[in-house]
């Protein structure tokens, strides 16, 4: 048609672009080679600065060139006066801005900017901050910029309250931003620390004084500010309950306690002449300076973890030199020192007793509340109320259900058990992809509840049958248990941690799906193992049992292994101590 604008065809355009590209490549390669040869000759002149600038402005991710550039700049620092250096570095900052426009996430550019800013004789931090703000307004998740900003804030000493206002602003414009929420969580304890506690409890209290507070109180925020934060974060999750960043922040707000590092239990057995020590967290006893003092005499002992798989473990055992405590008419005093943490625990073995222990029980420690713990129950109650309100509106929201469960556990784990189980059921339905995670979490909570019940009853029997357990945990808390009943659950193994049950005599685990007995390892008192209707298929799976010297009774009915030819004779060979075998 006449008059129409003629446009080049795609092929024509392509051809032109190809030629253009070739030309550019030639120039680029030439400049690069020039730079390299200059560098190898040790030339640090303005021309080299020019050349690298040319190359870097088209490809800011060329680390070698940034290095060369730094060499040149450092050389210039030695030959120019301060004003000139200031000018050179200011020009460098301008140049970097153009590089950041090419690639706002270039490692090289941001790193170089940090380097230049730190060397600038008269830095203009306000300008750097506003640059960061501009970058973050374009992409509020640019972590390079976040990193650089943190550096600027640190060096220039921006007041904490201004930074908090900065997070307010970012969260206000888009609250789906982990970086801002997280930054907030680091600022709040600085700006609104919890009012100073009563003088912190002595680390080495006399036995008569009340037990030391189980939780340390660092990283905590004063209550007035906490309430404001609750309100803020509630606004976020009521607005969009599917956004997880707010929920994570909420969990941080609710649970800020860290457990004190301590020796939680010392157990001594006269028969085995053995000491077992439990710690509040997994440690490597060989390297933390553990010292055993028996009747005032330091003992040279070999600490070992309960299972060779563990370099770190919450439970460590050692054998005393033979004959030290085996006389039942003697009384002994043991002290275990954790020299690294300046803490220790005493244990007395009285005349006529075959074993003794000293410990803080899980109930004393409020152990299972530490994940969510606020001093004031009333605060937790009102939080639970508002999250329940949200749940009424959004009955199928997983974050909401999970938070309710956590709040209920913090408030009253046993009282809310029924509701908790019902919520877990819903969770598994609405978030089927993570149903295994929820099953494990539910198992953990059920185990915690059972431990609490056991301790209230002051018994050494742990019974948790028919609760759909999929995993075992908190086994370090079961150090003193003699009878354990895990029947009718969905366990697939007795993991290596199971070896922490150093006092175990009877193990009932009928009707599970257990294939693996790795954790039934060197249990000195174990006599009875009931494993009816499980999935143990080979004799090799039973190998760990051979390490338990006192094993007498073994029930393997309903396991594939029972069908193996010659099983009886082979078992007799493998486990000579067993006298009562059911196949």
């Amino acid at each position, binding site marked *: 048609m006449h008059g*129409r*604008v*003629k446009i*080049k065809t795609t092929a024509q355009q392509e051809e032109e672009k190809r030629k253009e590209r070739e030309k*550019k490549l030639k120039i680029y390669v030439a400049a690069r080679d020039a730079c390299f040869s200059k560098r190898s000759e040790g030339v640090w002149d303005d021309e080299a600065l020019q050349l690298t600038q040319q190359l870097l402005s088209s490809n800011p991710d060329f680390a070698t060139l940034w*290095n060369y550039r730094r060499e040149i700049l450092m050389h210039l620092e030695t030959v120019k006066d301060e004003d000139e250096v200031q000018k050179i570095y200011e020009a460098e900052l301008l140049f970097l801005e153009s590089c950041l426009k090419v690639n706002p996430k270039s490692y090289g550019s941001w790193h170089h900017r940090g380097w230049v800013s730190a060397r600038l004789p008269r830095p203009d931090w306000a300008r750097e901050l506003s640059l960061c703000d501009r970058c973050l307004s374009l992409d509020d998740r640019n972590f390079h910029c976040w990193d650089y900003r943190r550096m600027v804030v640190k060096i220039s000493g921006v007041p904490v309250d201004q930074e908090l206002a900065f997070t307010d602003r970012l969260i206000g414009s888009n609250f789906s931003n982990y970086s801002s929420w997280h930054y907030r969580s680091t600022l709040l304890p600085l700006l609104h620390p919890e009012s100073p506690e009563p003088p912190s409890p002595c680390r080495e209290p006399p036995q008569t004084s009340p037990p030391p507070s189980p939780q340390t109180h660092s990283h905590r925020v004063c209550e007035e500010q906490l309430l404001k934060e609750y309100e803020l974060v509630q606004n976020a999750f*009521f607005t969009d309950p599917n956004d997880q960043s707010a929920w994570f922040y909420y969990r941080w707000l609710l649970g800020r306690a860290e457990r004190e590092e301590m020796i939680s239990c010392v157990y001594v057995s006269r028969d085995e002449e053995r000491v077992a020590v439990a710690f509040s967290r997994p440690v490597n006893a060989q390297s933390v300076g553990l010292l055993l003092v028996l009747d005032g005499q330091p003992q040279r002992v070999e600490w070992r973890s309960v299972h060779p798989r563990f370099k770190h473990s919450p439970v460590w055992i050692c054998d005393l030199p033979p004959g030290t405590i085996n006389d039942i008419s003697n009384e002994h005093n043991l002290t275990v020192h954790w020299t690294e943490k300046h803490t220790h625990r005493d244990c007395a073995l009285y005349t006529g007793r075959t074993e003794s222990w000293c410990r803080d029980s899980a109930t004393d420690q409020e152990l299972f509340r530490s994940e969510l713990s606020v001093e004031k129950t009333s605060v937790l109650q009102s939080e639970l109320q508002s999250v329940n309100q949200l749940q009424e*509106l959004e009955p199928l929201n997983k974050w909401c259900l999970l938070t309710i469960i956590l709040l209920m556990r913090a408030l009253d784990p046993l009282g809310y058990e029924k509701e908790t189980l019902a919520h877990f059921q819903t969770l598994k339905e609405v978030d089927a992809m993570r149903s295994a995670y929820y099953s494990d979490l539910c198992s953990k909570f059920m185990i915690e509840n059972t431990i609490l019940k056991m301790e209230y009853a002051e018994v050494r029997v742990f019974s948790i049958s028919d609760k759909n357990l999929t995993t075992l945990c908190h086994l370090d808390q079961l150090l003193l248990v003699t009878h354990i009943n895990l029947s009718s659950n969905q366990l697939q193994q007795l993991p290596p941690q199971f070896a922490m049950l150093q006092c175990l005599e009877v193990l009932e685990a009928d009707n599970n799906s257990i294939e693996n007995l790795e954790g039934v390892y060197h249990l000195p008192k174990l006599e009875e193992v009931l494993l009816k209707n499980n999935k143990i298929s080979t004799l090799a799976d039973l190998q760990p049992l051979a390490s338990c010297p006192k094993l007498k009774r073994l029930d393997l009915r309903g396991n594939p292994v029972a069908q193996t030819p010659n099983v009886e004779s082979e078992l007799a060979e493998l486990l000579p101590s067993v006298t009562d075998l059911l196949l």
Partner: protein
Amino acid sequence: MAAEDLPSEFDVVILGTGLAESVVAAACSRVGQRVLHLDRRSYYAANWASFTFNGLLSWIQQHQVKEVQDWSGLLEEGEELIYLSNSDPASIRNLQVFCYTSEEDEEEEAVSPGPSETTEEEAVKETSETESADSKDEEGNHQVRRNFNTPAAHHLPAINTHFMSVQSQAVHTQGEEPEADQPCPSAAPSQSQPTRKKISYAQLVKEGRRFNIDLVSKLMYSRGSLVDLLIKSNVSRYAEFKNVTRILTYRHGNVEQVPCSRADVFASRQLSVVEKRKLMRFLTSCVEEMEEHQAYSGRPYLEFLRNQQLGDNLQHFLLHSIAMVTEDTPTEEGLASTRHFLRCLGRYGNTPFLFPVYGLGEIPQCFCRMCAVFGGIYCLRHSLLCLLLDMSSNRYTSSQCGVSCEDVTCSDPIGRSPCCLCLYRFVSRAVLITDSSVLPSDSEQQVSVVTVPPIAAGCPAVRMVELSPSTMTCVPGTHLVHLTCQSVGSAYEDLSPVVTRMFHTPESPDRGSRPSVLWCLYFNMADGWGVEPEGHDLPSNVFLCSGPDAALGHDHAVRQAESIFQKILPEEDFCPPAPNPEDIIYDGDNSSSSTAGGLEEPEEERQEEPEEEHQEEKQLLEEASPPAEE
């Protein structure tokens, strides 16, 4: 035509530079049609125009009437003349101007040599008009009412004398005061406002060039047809846009912010957390059509909202500010506009709307520019006086002066079809210059749309757009406020009650903390919605565009332009992307690189290009550069 060397043969002649006409012009020119685009006015964009303050004052005073010449002597056998109407007053009426600020700036006068002479003249003129209007008050009022009651009678453009009379009425009504007992406006403010320093009328005139006052008040839906068209055609490169930053509403005598985006809902202090959840859930749920929605088909949207267990305030927000419908709008319509609103959210910001920097009048001009880039010819202050009709084919063949062409598109009423004008509804408009925002906030640069539900039964719902100086439509220290509603009475009758309530004027009962009105203008404009572009017994190659409609978006004009374009050129693509200047081939030049940018401004070319180049370059560099060492 004036210039002898211009071509006299065109494919398309377009009269009027309103939005629809300009889009048609750009579209035709883009696909190679020879376009002649005329406007008899001295400015672009017709009733879509934006004026400086002084420009607006002269627009108000503009009443020139041209004699219709008799061209019948030139008729040949088998031809007939169609007269084209050539004046605005048919579409603009009931102009009323009020100035509530002092004539001169007292403080400034003491230190500066005083306003320039032209400024003084203007100011004096304004005063005298206001005074003289007072004396003619009764008569003027009467005229206004009569005009309104019998609109059709004035729209027979063939009766030239009648036209004149209508226009002369417009002269009278301009600047008049409707109430005789009202204090003289120029005197009032200085007495009642001794403390706050107000911007004087003289200052407004002096700084008048920095105003861009739109005749229509619209916003661009960020996923509306206009934005799509601007992007598709690359016309967007000719303009800049700002986000509307707030949606406000007037409720229980207060201006409140309507939380509509996620960030707004999160930050809102007026909603409880439960309300926040309910609102968010409603907004998310209505994005998709559901069976539940169909059950309410035909029933009022309000009823649907009531049954969603939303509180009163949420219902108000959803009905008036988000759907922007009335209480009896059917549910399906309400839901459709709610959806449209939501779809537009978040594309460019936290509200669904954009506003062009320098005013809405920019948009038609951008399309004109595109038309010119592809060879369209422009003449302002020119029009066709009549069309020559080939009786046998009922097709227009040429106009007087020998401009001949294939198709004609025009915006003005054409003589033969008076009936279309009877369909005119009117839009009531008010333009205020105020001294502060209706809802002050940290930032002075908010651009707000305010929905005002009917203040009493039978009153229209009013839509208000408040522009800050950041839009380059008013001077710092002022806000420009546009009010729009469907006419029930005259613009003054419809809108002044709202103005009196929400702003401080001498008529307001008390001052409160409301913004003061410095200057305001009321007028009615014909609503382009009522005019069907076809079926008016037009020659088959003459197409009619309507003027601006009352709706908030631009869909009507864009749709109309597209349909006209498709009638003219059914085979052609409507506004395909304009090519990059470097890809255009010019006659006798195949290498093209030397003349790249010949049509376009070089700086735009530079803006467009680098991004692509850099990407390629980077790819190359990645291949070429050695592994980084550190």
